[in-house]
């Protein structure tokens, strides 16, 4: 019943969020009707107001058991708030939160059985590493022997057995992070929530920990909700990414979906780098769509049924999908777009070359393999990009 309500309300809004929301809600309903694997975590029409400030706005989100879902968005988009709602530190002002089919909105944090890794780790400063990790087991009145075993196993898992007697203050950031992880996993919670757990680490350690966490996720079959503002991190680690903007999901999907088929300008610009060209949709359809740019050229793009013909839209193409050829050698076809340009700048970046291209009043960026012949600044070139790599997105 609530699902159908959600559908009607969500589809009332003609935005991408509405579309994704209604799709999520209806698939949840289908699953429920089939009696098949229902969503493990389900947020329905969740709203969070701080005073008059709407921080989470009619949020629908379902997560299946064993899934790794990232909440990705700029600072202040409500990611931490959603995690706190899940963990039970905040009560939603509207909507419902279910875990394993049961409503948990009213449950206090200590009865939700979720492992939380906080942004600053939040280790107990007055306890040794071993006591920190033992804490959740003690709270569950696990026997002494078993605590000892499980703490040892958890510390082995994060490879910090040798630090078990230290105080957290005597550990490096990366070590504290691992202890926080061990503490959140040792009681085998049904869900692990992580709030930018790698934000304070340097690049190398961060990448190592990303792989470690992903590995733990696979090995232990954990359900993980992972908050980050780092798009690379989200792309590396997640089964699905929910891109947040001002308390709403702009798009939710697999990393490739999000990256290759951004549903909005916000997503296209937030995830990676992109070239955007303004125009008006002329044709849509399953075989591809056409867009007439404001500068007059017609560009072919991948299949889309939205925005509908006649609407203002943007054409998005990633720099790595843009190639360059000597002027006059490129041939325009139905599925290949070309454009005239002058090389404005050429930046060597080690593994690749970035060309800044001047196409009339428009600027484009191409990311080229460095094997490609160098183009001197000022050279006239043909810019080539495939229709299949071009996305029409609403303005």
């Amino acid at each position, binding site marked *: 019943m609530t699902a159908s309500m959600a559908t009607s309300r969500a589809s009332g809004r003609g935005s991408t969020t509405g579309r994704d929301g209604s799709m999520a809600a209806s698939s949840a309903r289908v699953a429920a009707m089939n009696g098949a694997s229902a969503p493990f975590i389900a947020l329905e029409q969740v709203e969070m107001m701080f005073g008059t400030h709407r921080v989470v706005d009619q949020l629908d989100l379902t997560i299946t058991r064993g899934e790794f879902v990232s909440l990705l968005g700029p600072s202040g988009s409500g990611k931490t708030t959603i995690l706190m709602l899940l*963990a*039970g*530190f905040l009560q939603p002002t509207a909507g419902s939160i279910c875990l394993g089919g049961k409503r948990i909105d009213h449950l*206090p*944090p*200590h009865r*939700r*059985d*979720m*492992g*939380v890794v*906080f*942004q*600053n780790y*939040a*280790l*107990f*400063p*007055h306890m*040794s590493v*071993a*006591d920190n990790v*033992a*804490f*959740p087991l*003690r*709270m*569950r009145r696990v026997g*002494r022997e078993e*605590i*000892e075993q499980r*703490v040892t196993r958890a510390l082995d898992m994060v490879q910090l057995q040798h630090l*078990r*007697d*230290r*105080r957290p203050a005597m550990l490096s950031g990366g070590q504290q992070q691992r202890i926080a992880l061990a*503490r*959140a996993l040792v*009681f085998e919670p049904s869900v692990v*929530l992580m709030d930018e757990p790698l934000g304070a680490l340097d690049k190398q350690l961060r990448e190592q920990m990303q792989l470690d966490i992903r590995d733990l996720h696979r090995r232990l079959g954990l359900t993980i909700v992972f908050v980050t503002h780092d798009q690379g991190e989200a792309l590396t680690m997640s089964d699905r990414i929910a891109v947040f903007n001002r308390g709403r999901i702009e798009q939710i999907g697999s990393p490739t979906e999000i990256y290759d088929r951004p549903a909005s300008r916000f997503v296209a610009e937030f995830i990676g780098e992109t070239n955007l060209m303004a125009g008006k949709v002329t044709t849509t359809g399953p075989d591809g769509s056409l867009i007439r740019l404001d500068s007059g050229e017609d560009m072919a793009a991948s299949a889309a049924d939205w925005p509908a013909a006649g609407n203002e839209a943007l054409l998005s193409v990633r720099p790595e999908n843009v190639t360059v050829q000597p002027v006059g050698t490129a041939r325009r076809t139905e599925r290949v777009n070309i454009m005239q340009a002058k090389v404005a700048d050429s930046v060597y970046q080690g593994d690749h070359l970035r060309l800044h291209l001047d196409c009339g009043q428009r600027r484009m960026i191409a990311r080229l393999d460095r094997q490609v012949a160098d183009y001197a600044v000022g050279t006239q070139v043909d810019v080539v990009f495939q229709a299949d790599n071009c996305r029409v997105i609403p303005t």
Partner: protein
Amino acid sequence: MKAAKIVFGLLAVTFLMAPLVTILPLAFTSSDLLSYPIRSFSLRWFEELMISDAWRMSIVNSLVIGAGATLLATVLGTLVSLGLRRSFAFSGILKSALLLPMVVPAVILGVGMQITFIQLGLVNTHVGVIIAHTVVALPFVIVSVSGSLAGIDMRVERAAMSLGANPLRVFGHVTLPLMLPGVLSGAVLAFATSLDEVVLTLFVAGPNQRTLARQMFSSIRENISPAIAAAAFVIIVGTVVVAGLVLLFRAAAQRQKPSTVTV
């Protein structure tokens, strides 16, 4: 610059310590007069404190009243600080009101208490003096405990909750141990406050509640004997010992505990 700092520091310390350095040696004089030079040393004035009924009773009174006021002020002050941790309507005003005894002249408090205590039949009772001392000691506990509570990262308590601790166990396992240093220093300050409180005691205590400070105060007027210096010595040593114990306790708590996971 550095030299200037050192000189200034020395001056400040001298200024603070001079009165103590002046009075304390006189506790060991053998003379009948509270004055220099000291011709020979003796412990006769400490004996006097033990033998004389007035002095002995005042010491016992100070300990009883000090203990009572410390206990009451520490418990109340800790509860108040916990209650005031999250701000709510008028919490700022409430906190200011509780800190008022720090700034209101003791004489005014004393007059007010005397009038109130007469109504309640608390005047000239130990309970009355304990309550009076609690009022002036409370702000010190509140300031001290609030300070240590402010240093606790709320996320640490949230972490405890999410790891399965109910509110009571969060308090017992996390909040209390982390705020304990503040509670202990608050208690020491409360005890010290009670120990040297004179003005309120003058208003609400009868002859049977004479505290050490009060006894010193009246014996200065009656006969200036070196027993006062001996009493001062006792008070100071007592305070230093208590403070030292707290420091020791804290240091022990900081030190690394042995490894085994204790249940």
